[in-house]
C-alpha cells in the first residue's frame, strides 16, 4: 500500500482504511489479523473500524474473521517520551457529530484513558473539547498495583486543579483486558443517555493516552456507540534511560477476536467438530 502525504494528520488513517478494505487488496483472504503493536491510534483506529464495518456489513468477498494482536509492555510504555504535541483533532472516522455547528451544542462528557507523561496532550484535548465534565480512566487492576495512584499523582495538577475532576468520577479498568474498558464505557454511555436524554443532547467523547490494549477498549466502545474520539498525537518519540533487554521479559502478546467464530458453533453442522478433528 503506497504512502500518500496528507494535509491534515487525521486524514492518514481513513486513507489507509479505504485502501485496505478495497476488494482488490484483500482478494481470497478469509481471515484478517491487524497487528497494532507499532501503529499509532490515528492509523489503527480507522483501519480496525473499517475492517469491522466491512465484516459487519458482510461485504462480499471480505474476510469474516477479524483479530487484533498487540505486543504490550507497560514498563516500556512508561519509558517512551512523546515529543511535540500536535493540535488536537477528531480521529479520522470518529468525529461522531462533534464538529457539526448546525446541530444544537451538545453537552460534552470526556473520558480520557490516562497513561504516563501525558499532561500536555490531555490539556490539548481538553481545550479542544471544552467538556462539561471529565471521567478519567485509570488502569486497575494492573501489573504494578500502584500504577493508578502514580498516574493520579503525576497528573494531579491537570486532573484536579485544571480540569476540576470530582473524585467520584474516576473510573478503573483492567489494564490487560480491553473488553473490561469497553463494557465500562458502554455502561457510562448508557447511563448518560438514560439520565440526560430528555434534557439535552449529551456526547460522551473519548481519548486514549495509554496502552494499546486499553486503546482497543476505547475503539470498541466508540465503534459500537458511534462516539467521537479525539487525539493530540506527538510528532516524535524518544526512549528514556532504560535497558530494553531487561524490560523485554515483560512483553505480553495479546490477541482479541473481534468478528467471526473463535469457537465452532454446534448449531452449524458444517462447523461441528468431528470426533477425529484435532485442535
Amino acid at each position, binding site marked *: 500500500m503506497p504512502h500518500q502525504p496528507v494535509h491534515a494528520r487525521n486524514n492518514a488513517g481513513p486513507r489507509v482504511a479505504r485502501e485496505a478494505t478495497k476488494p482488490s487488496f484483500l482478494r481470497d483472504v478469509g481471515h484478517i489479523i491487524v497487528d497494532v503493536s507499532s501503529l499509532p491510534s490515528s492509523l489503527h483506529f480507522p483501519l480496525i473500524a473499517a475492517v469491522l464495518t466491512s465484516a459487519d456489513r458482510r461485504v462480499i468477498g471480505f474476510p469474516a474473521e477479524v483479530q487484533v494482536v498487540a505486543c504490550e509492555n507497560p514498563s516500556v510504555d512508561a519509558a517512551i517520551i512523546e515529543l511535540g504535541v500536535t493540535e488536537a483533532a477528531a480521529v479520522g472516522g470518529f468525529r461522531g457529530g462533534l464538529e457539526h455547528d*448546525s446541530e444544537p451544542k451538545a453537552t460534552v462528557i470526556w473520558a480520557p484513558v490516562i497513561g504516563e507523561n501525558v499532561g500536555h496532550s490531555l490539556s490539548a484535548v481538553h481545550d479542544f473539547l471544552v467538556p462539561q465534565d471529565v471521567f478519567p480512566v485509570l488502569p486497575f487492576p494492573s501489573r504494578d498495583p500502584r500504577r493508578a495512584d502514580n498516574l493520579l499523582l503525576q497528573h494531579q495538577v491537570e486532573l484536579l486543579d485544571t480540569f476540576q475532576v470530582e473524585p467520584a468520577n474516576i473510573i478503573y479498568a483492567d489494564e490487560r483486558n480491553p473488553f473490561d474498558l469497553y463494557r465500562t464505557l458502554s455502561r457510562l454511555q448508557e447511563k448518560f443517555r438514560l439520565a440526560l436524554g430528555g434534557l439535552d443532547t449529551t456526547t460522551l467523547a473519548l481519548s486514549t493516552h495509554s496502552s494499546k490494549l486499553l486503546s482497543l477498549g476505547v475503539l470498541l466502545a466508540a465503534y459500537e456507540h458511534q462516539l467521537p474520539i479525539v487525539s493530540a498525537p506527538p510528532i516524535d518519540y524518544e526512549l528514556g534511560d532504560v535497558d530494553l533487554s531487561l524490560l523485554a521479559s515483560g512483553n505480553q502478546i495479546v490477541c482479541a477476536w473481534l468478528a467471526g467464530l473463535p469457537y465452532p458453533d454446534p448449531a452449524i453442522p458444517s462447523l461441528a467438530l468431528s470426533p477425529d478433528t484435532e485442535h
Partner: protein
Amino acid sequence: MSVYLNPFYARASEQHRDAHRFVTTFGPGALDMLPGAVWDRLVLLRSSPGAGKTSLMRLFLPENLEWARKRSPHTEPVRQALMELGAIDEQQTRKLGVLIDLDRDYRSLLDLPLNGDVGRKLFFRLLDVRILVGVLRSTLSLTGLSFPEAVGDFRFDADGDCRVEALLERLGGPDGAGIHGYARSTERSILRMLDALLESDVAEIPEGHSELYSLTVLAQASVLVGTETITAQPMIMFDDGHILERPQRDALLAELRRRRPTVARWYSERFEALSHQELLAGVGIEGRDVALVELDAIAREGSNDGKRFTRGRYDRVLADIARRRAAHQLSTYAQENQEFLELLDEDRDAALGSEAEGVIQELETRVRDLEATDDRYKLWVDHARSLTGFEAATAWRELEVLINRDQNRQPGFFEDTLSTDDISARSSAALRDAAALSVADEFKIPYYGGSSMVTQLGSHNAHQFLNVCGDLFAEMLVDVSLGRPPHLDVARQHRVLRQASERFWESIPRTVPHGRDVQALVREIVAISVAEKAKPRLPYPPGVTGTAILMAERKLLLDPKFREATPGAERLFAALASAVAHNILNADLDYSVKRNRYMVLYLNRLLCPRFMLPLGYGSFRERRLQVMIGWMRKLPALGNRPRELVVGERLNFEA
C-alpha cells in the same frame, strides 16, 4: 483531593463557558490595544500563542457583550471600555459577534480527491454555512431565543436587491429554517465524506461556492427576528488562520479584504517570524483596507501612536487580571482583602538572613583588593559601608564593577577623588539589577520574587503569566490550609519560580516540534549570556538574554534553495521557526542598530530563572547566520541522540 480551587489554573475554556466569570476577569486595558477604526475594515490580529487574541475576540460574542452591558457595576471597567469602542451602548448591544474557528475541518478538505478550484469552492461553501449558522445562533441569543428551536423566527430581507435574493435562495433562505436546513445538509455531506472509512461510503462531492456568499448577504440584507429588525452590526471573526494551508489562507483573506464596511471582519493568526507573513501587499493597504494589530509588539512597546496603549501598560493589564482572578478566592479562603500581587514579599534582607555579614565582608574585601590604597574611590567606599543588608551587598558588587571599569579607562593627569554623584552618573538601574543578580547567583541567595518580577516572567503573554501566578497561588494555598496568612517571602517565591522555570524548560521537547533542537538553540543563547555575565565590567547590564541575526541573513534563511544547499540550515530554520511559534523565543523584526537591521531573538523570560539570568530586556549579542548554522551542525544527527542528552541536566532544588 483539593478543597481549595486555584483560580489561575482554570482553563481558558472554563472561562469561556461562563459569561460572568469571563467578563469579570477580563482585563479591560487589553481593549486599548485595538486601533481606533475596527468596524469598517479587515482587522488582522497577530500574536504568539497565549497572548490573548482568542479571548479578545470572544469578548464580542453576544452573551458576553450583553453580560457586560447589563451587569454594571460588577463589569463597569469592561463595560466602559466597550462603550468607548462602540460595541455597546446604554440601550443595546451594537455588534453581532460570530466566531469561526479555522482550526477545524477546513484543512482536511485538501485531502479529498479534488482539483484546486473545486477544493476552494467547497472550502467557501463550508465556511459560508458555518458563518450563517453562527449568525443564526448569535441573533437568537441576542433576542433571548434558543437555537435551533427558534430558527423559524429568523429572516433575511434583501430589500429588493435581486442578486442578494438569488444568493439567499441558493443558501436555502431567506428564512432561518431553510438556511439552517441547507447548513445541516452541507455539513453532513462534507463531514461524512471526510469521515468515510470505506470507499463505497465516499459520496458525491457537493457543489461549492465561488465566493463567500454569506458576507455579501450580510453586507446588503437586513436581519429580522419576528417583526424586529436587528440593528447590531454583523461582526465575523476568524480565529487561528495559521492552521489553514497557504492557498486557503490567501483565498480567505482576499475575500475578507473586499470592501464591505457594513460587516466588521476580524482575522487572527499566530505570529511567524520565519515566513513571508508580514507582506501585506496581497491583503491591502494598511490603514485603509486593513488594520494590522501585532499584540506582542504592542504589549512590549506600546501602540504606534504612543497614546492609546502606552509602553509599560501591559504590565498593569496583567496585574489587573491577576487581581480579578484571585480576589474571590482570597477573600473566601483567607479573608484576605489585599490584592494577589501585594501578597508577594520583596524583602531581600530577610532572604539574605544570617549570611549577610559574611557576604558583605567578602564583597568588601574584593573591592579593597581592587582599589588598594587609591583614595580616588574613598567616598564610594564610605557610601557602600553606610548601607546594610542586601542593599549593601549589591552596592559593593556595583562598586566592584565601576572600579573595574574606571581602572580600565584612559588615565588622566589629575586623579581626583570621585564623588557619590559620580556613581549616579556612571551607574544605572540596569547595572544595579545586574549587581543584585550577580550577588544572588554567587552566594546562592533567593532572588526571584516580588510583583514586578512575576509580571516580567509572564513574558508579555497572558496565558504564561496566569500559569506562573497559579504556581504561586498553589504555594499560598499551603498557608491557607494551615490557617496562616497567604504571604510568600522571597525565598519561597524564588523556589516556586525556579521550579516553574525548570518545568517550562523540561516541557520544551514534549510540547514543541523539533523540541530538542530548540533546547540546543536556547543553550547556545544562554552560553552567550553566561559569558557576558562573567566579565568583570558587566558591559551589557542588566545582562544579555538574546541574540540577533541581520535581516538580510534572515532573508537568506527563508530561501528554500539556500537551505537545501547549506548543511544545517534547514535544521536551524525549523528550530527557529518552532521556537518563535511556540513562544520559547520572542522575535522582534527590523530592529535598527547602527544602520543595520536585525531580527532580535530574546529568551522567553520564564527560562531566565533556570539559568539565573536577568529578566529585563534590552541586551543582545548578534551572531552571523553561519555561526548559528554551526550550532546545529554540531548536534547529533536526528534520531541518533546519545542517551546522556536524552536525560538532560536537571536543577537540584535541594542545593
